[in-house]
């Protein structure tokens, strides 16, 4: 009787609950969706599968690998990463590099071709080389052209994993482009290019009053054939001495043909002339070199971030620290100095004087727009021009040549890489100088540009696309056959630019700082960078990712088991009653 009652009660309770149909909201954690893929085609998918398997084994259902849903994290497996591989979304990207090989190896991580140099000047090639497992051995790093070894460095490796920044110098003997190879023993190589230009660098020397400093700097330039110097010296109120073809006045248009403007006695400049010089630096990309011979004052101070100067007079002329000059056996020397006190963070020090605490900048360059303003605080350096290897003349020749070479042409074309393999994709960039853009009515008009690749097998158009920066266009070119291509770009306003592209078989490139780029991507997106040899940090990172919380409404009476329970209770009660003969 009791069992029958119990079963009946259960059946009635279930029936009542079914009629009531109560429901509950439950918050549950869902597995984190993670996408995993190889970072480059060169990396085998086997490593991807291996990493995925190991992560699934260690993290279980806390993560779910899927590319169908929007992932909460991305794992890139491979040795390199390029911007194209990166998703547009804002998700953390972790990287898994292949385990480091234990075999001795050398890689050229980075190597850059030097900027074009004037014919007869020294071009310096820089490269970063990484060696593994070569401790105790010496590598011969060679720069060669054809079969001729142009320069070399022997570097002894002192640790198992070591990086070495190498600088090799070479004087291109002829004007034009020369393909060279930087080789490390017979283990690694990279193809680079040296460009010697024959064009003369246009320099204007402007002296509102006669100035010894500017005069001797001008003489140093006039003695070098790579400079084409125009000069104007106002020797009196109504008299001037001209050399070459200087403009009658310092105006924006008159300064455009020049690469560098040297100003002696700059305190005599008028406000309008200072404005023209500012525009020359900011928009033309030229360099304004200010060579005062007295305490800085006047309108030209607005060209610089510093209007406060420390005046220093030393009993014995001081040899200034000038990078690169001392190695040539020359020294810039001065005894009367004006040292800028402000705006030094954004500056580049070209010459400094040692002091008890820290070196004080004497000749300083500040960026101004796309150009540069150089201030020389070595007020009486001209007095020592004949001493110490003619340091005065050599210093200014070097720095002014660098500045002139850095002045952009109307239309500048560049290709990456400069030496490519047949079939390789090359990026072409065309950059219009700001002076070629027309600003009117709050709008900037950019002239249209056309690019063609002219080679031994004909001429091909290159489609250029505007980039986010006004006046800059980019396009891609698929190289075909071996040879030299002339990438010619012309703008509607008449500006033209050319760049040469060498296509050679088996052209070798720097491997790039793969590990660095992996680390950079991981760090900048919030992920971690690990190697396949040890996934623990990645496991900890993925395990710590917040799982999504799913709110579910649970209605237990709608479950089939609820019906089964009701039927079982009701059927049991009925069966017991039948056995006892109760109806």
């Amino acid at each position, binding site marked *: 009787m009791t069992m029958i009652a119990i079963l009946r009660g259960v059946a009635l309770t279930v029936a009542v609950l079914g009629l009531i149909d109560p429901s509950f909201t439950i918050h549950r954690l869902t597995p984190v969706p993670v996408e995993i893929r190889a970072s480059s085609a060169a990396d085998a998918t086997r490593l991807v599968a291996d990493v995925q398997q190991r992560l699934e084994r260690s993290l279980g259902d806390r993560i779910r690998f899927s590319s169908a849903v929007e992932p909460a994290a991305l794992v890139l497996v491979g040795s390199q990463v390029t911007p194209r591989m990166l998703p547009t979304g804002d998700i953390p990207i972790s990287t898994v590099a292949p385990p480091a090989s234990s075999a001795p190896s050398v890689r050229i991580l980075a190597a850059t071709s030097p900027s074009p140099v004037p014919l007869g000047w020294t071009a310096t090639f820089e490269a970063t080389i990484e060696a593994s497992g070569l401790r105790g051995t010496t590598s011969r790093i060679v720069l060669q052209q054809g079969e001729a070894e142009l320069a070399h460095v022997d570097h002894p490796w002192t640790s198992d994993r070591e990086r070495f920044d190498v600088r090799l110098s070479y004087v291109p003997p002829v004007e034009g482009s020369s393909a060279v190879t930087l080789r490390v023993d017979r283990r690694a190589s990279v193809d680079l290019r040296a460009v010697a230009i024959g064009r003369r660098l246009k320099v204007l020397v402007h002296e509102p009053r006669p100035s010894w400093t500017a005069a001797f700097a001008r003489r140093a330039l006039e003695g070098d054939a790579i400079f084409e110097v125009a000069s104007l010296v106002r020797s009196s109120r109504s008299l001037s001495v*001209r050399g070459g073809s200087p403009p009658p006045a310092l105006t924006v248009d008159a300064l455009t043909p020049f690469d560098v403007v040297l100003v002696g006695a700059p305190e005599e400049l008028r406000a309008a002339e200072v404005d023209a010089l500012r525009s020359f630096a900011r928009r033309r990309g030229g360099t304004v070199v200010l060579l005062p011979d007295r305490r800085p004052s006047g309108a030209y101070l607005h060209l610089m971030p510093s209007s406060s100067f420390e005046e220093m007079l030393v009993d014995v002329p001081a040899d200034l620290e000038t990078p690169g000059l001392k190695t040539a056996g020359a020294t810039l020397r001065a005894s009367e100095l004006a040292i800028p006190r402000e705006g030094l963070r954004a500056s580049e020090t070209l010459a400094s004087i040692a002091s008890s605490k820290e070196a004080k900048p004497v000749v300083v360059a500040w960026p101004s727009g796309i150009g540069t303003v150089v201030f020389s605080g070595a007020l009486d350096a001209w007095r020592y021009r004949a001493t110490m290897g003619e340091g005065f003349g050599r210093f200014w020749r070097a720095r002014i040549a660098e500045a002139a070479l850095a002045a952009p042409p109307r239309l500048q074309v560049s290709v990456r890489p400069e030496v490519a393999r047949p079939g390789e994709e090359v990026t072409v960039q065309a950059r219009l100088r700001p002076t070629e853009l027309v600003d009117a009515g709050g709008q900037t008009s950019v002239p249209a540009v056309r690019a063609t690749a002219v080679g031994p097998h004909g001429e091909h158009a290159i489609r250029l696309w505007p980039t986010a920066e006004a006046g800059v266009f980019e396009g891609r070119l698929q190289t075909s056959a071996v040879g030299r291509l002339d990438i010619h770009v012309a703008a509607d306003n008449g500006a033209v630019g050319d760049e040469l592209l060498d296509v050679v078989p088996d052209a070798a490139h720097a491997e790039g700082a793969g590990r660095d780029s992996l680390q950079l991507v991981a760090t900048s997106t919030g992920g971690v960078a690990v190697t396949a040899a040890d996934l623990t940090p990645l496991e900890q990172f993925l395990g710590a990712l917040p799982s999504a919380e799913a709110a579910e409404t649970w209605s237990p009476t709608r479950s089939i088991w609820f019906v089964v329970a009701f039927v079982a209770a009701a059927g049991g009660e009925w069966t017991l009653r039948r056995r006892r003969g109760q109806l």
Partner: protein
Amino acid sequence: VSPHDATVGPFADRLASISRRLRLVELFRVVTVAAPIGGVIDLVLRRQAWSSVVANGAGIGVVVVMVAIWMLRIGSRWTAAAAARAIESTRPESRNLVITAEELSRYPDRARPWIRTRVFEQATAIAAEALPSAVVPLSRPVALSAVSALAAVILVSGLAGRAVAAVQQRAQQAIGATVSTPRPAGFSATATITPPSYTGEIAKTVQNPDRIDAVQGSHLRLTIDGRAAWRVRFGADPVAVQREGDSSLIELPLTRSGYLAIEPLQSDASPTRRRLVPVTVAPDRAPTIRIDAPGKDLLLPNAKSTIAVAASAADDFGLRSLELRYTRASGSGENFDFQEGTIPLDIAHESPRAWKARAALALAQLGMGPGDAIIYRVVGRDGRPGDAGLAVSDTFFVEIAGPGQVALEGFELPPDRERYALSQQMIVLKLERLRAKEKSITRAALEEEIAGIAAEQRAVRSNFIFLMGGHVEDEEEEAEHSDEIAEGRLENTARKEIVTAIQHMSRAEVGLAAVSTGAALPPARSAVEALQRAFGRNRYFLRTLPVRSRVDPSRRLTGEMKDASDWTREIPPAVQDSQSLAARRLLERLIALSPALRANTVDPQVLTAMAEEALAVDPAATEWQAISKSLMQLRDSGNVAAPERSKLLANTVSVVTLLAQRQTLAARPSDRANRALRGAWAEERR
């Protein structure tokens, strides 16, 4: 010995056998000594360019003569007696029996027959037991002579020279030096350089010279061995070649640096036989003469003193004479009288090349009077004829103060304008004297004396204001802006110092007006210091002015204002560094040739021409000589393995590159791509 002595025959035979072996031993010994001597003689003669036949003949002849002399002189070493002694030495138990027997064989009548027979019987028995090979072993002399003969053969065949060359090559490879290349075959030359006789240097002879260094004026005698005909050039100038026996001879006076190009006349001769020999001619430098004491100009109060002059002179080859010359200037105004003379020097010869000299300038004996001046210098010459070797020291002055001229004892003679400093100095002196005695004089006397000094001070100050071009309205303002005059910084500094001195003079006048020596003295002293600074710098500046830059005061204010106009300056064309240019051209050709050089397919004449071009750039420069030598080594490296040739090429490129980049600086890398970004960031930070 009677022939009937039956025992004499075997004994004599054994002695003869041993005697022959003794002779052989001596022969081997002499060969052991003579063979290497013959080999050395053969080698030396061939090194001296004697023909192989002559050298070999001489070597063999020496050996034969030595053997013959040796064998003739020591014939006693293989006699029967020597053989008997040899047997005795190996068989001491015979107790001189064998020696006795040998002696009896020569002097049979010294013993009775039966004794003699018995001696011979026993000696024969002993000799029969002593085998010749044991008594006189030949193995050691034979072995020594064989080794000696082998050494001689090695010397004669040149194997030793090749082995030494191979060792040298390996050593050079080990230390990374340039790879030596074989000397061109069939070329042997001897250069004899005879310096000029006055140098006292002895003639120098160089065998197969790589380069010739000589003093200017030397004489070169170059002998090229062999019957081959040669054409010789000194640079582009042909040099006469004379035949002298089997050799060619050139004679050349060496007056300038250059190079000898020695080429075979036969058209079918190997291009690798061409030789380039740089000739560096060093000029004979003139003597360097310095006056060590007094070493400065002097202004003296009178002519009573005697000036001790000390001088030193040096020359690279030797001095010949040294003397002190002077010019005495006397008079005043426009009536000056000049008299020249010479004073002998007391010379101490430290060495033929370095002399020290002393002299005494007795001013009174020279007739010096107030206002007179003497200008002196030391003149010397080296051994060269004519005035080529003449040298003169710096010139110094000694001036006797004139009437009214102030001079401190031995004070350095100032230039004209510096005398103003002395005037101010005199004011200081007067002030100091007055200050020392002011307590002992009356107030009125003090005022009177101070008034006199103040007048002088005003006069001196007026002079300086006049010197500055007029009245200085505001001395402070003038001092502040004294650097505005565009006369050069040093001049400006001097002017500034003068203005400062004028200020001090003004303060001194204020002190004098207040009748206070204490207030006047410090600014008066400061004025002197400022003037000395000003004129000291100015004097230095004026002395270093080149002649063409000196200002001609007579042309001042002679122009017309209306004629002043703009001027267009002609810019002279820049002069390119010819050596860098030549190096770049050479580098370009080397790079172009590099694949063919590695494959060893370059025409040797091309490399010879390049080597000559390199030498022609500057024959005396060691850099160009090194380049030329490297190119010649490349030319002659046909039999060298490709890696070694690559090393030679790398060495050559390296030395050429060093020259190509002289006078240049490396351009620093340009961050052109990021300039705009850096500029924008800098603008933001302002």
